[in-house]
């Protein structure tokens, strides 16, 4: 168990180093850069024209559907990894493989469903 946490503590150390790096960079930038605020600089940039309307105007509902698809599928694939690491061990074998094919079959049916339902078309 110590090794286990040791590994991640090093990783955490890296993250800390990274944060430090960014902080230093920002600090240095603060010292180096000029500050000359004008009204126009803080306007939202829309090709030089004053901004109009709300930000959600052009958002497609379709993105949600992709999100759903992803969430479901990605989590399903979570089951793959534990299986992937052991299925070739002695004692497992063909049956285990078939079971996973059943599982993949489920995934494939889901994909087929989404595809046939036209989720993947963009019209």
């Amino acid at each position, binding site marked *: 168990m110590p090794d286990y946490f040791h590994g991640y503590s090093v990783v955490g150390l890296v993250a800390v180093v990274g944060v430090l790096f960014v902080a230093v960079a920002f600090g240095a930038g603060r010292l180096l850069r000029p500050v000359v605020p004008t009204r126009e600089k803080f306007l939202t940039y829309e090709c030089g024209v004053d901004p109009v309307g709300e930000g959600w105007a052009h958002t497609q509902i379709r993105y949600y559907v992709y999100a759903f698809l992803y*969430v479901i599928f990605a989590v399903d694939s979570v089951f793959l990894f534990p299986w992937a690491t052991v299925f070739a061990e002695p004692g497992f074998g063909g049956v285990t493989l078939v079971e996973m094919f059943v599982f993949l079959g489920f995934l494939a049916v889901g994909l087929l469903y989404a595809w046939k339902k036209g989720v993947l078309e963009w019209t």
Partner: protein
Amino acid sequence: MHLAYPAVLAALLFCIGLYGVLARRNAILVLMSVELMLNAVNLNLVAFDVWLRERLHTGQALALFTIAVAAAEIGIGLAIVLVVHRTRGSSEIDRLTDLRERDTGADAEGDADGPEERAGVKATTDSGRQTS
């Protein structure tokens, strides 16, 4: 590492989630709070699994399933929130009162039926196909 840390963290997460469920009025935020609760459970399960050094790793197995369950719930939940938002333009759960039992007379409810249906029809026609 002592078991207390993850356990306390999980308890905190769960309580925050619970508070969110009870206090938040936006359906999406409630949904997120529920996810928080589920992840607290996951943390618990994995921590206990490690602590127990259980041979079968039942805790981790359940954690995996919990992840899957949470994902499925999010999928369906967002779809439902979307439908609600589409039919009434708001996802505040406080405003979901169409089905509440009222003590007013029958006429009021009878009237309430009409616009509701009309609004529903409109929503279907302009929203196209919904798949979840």
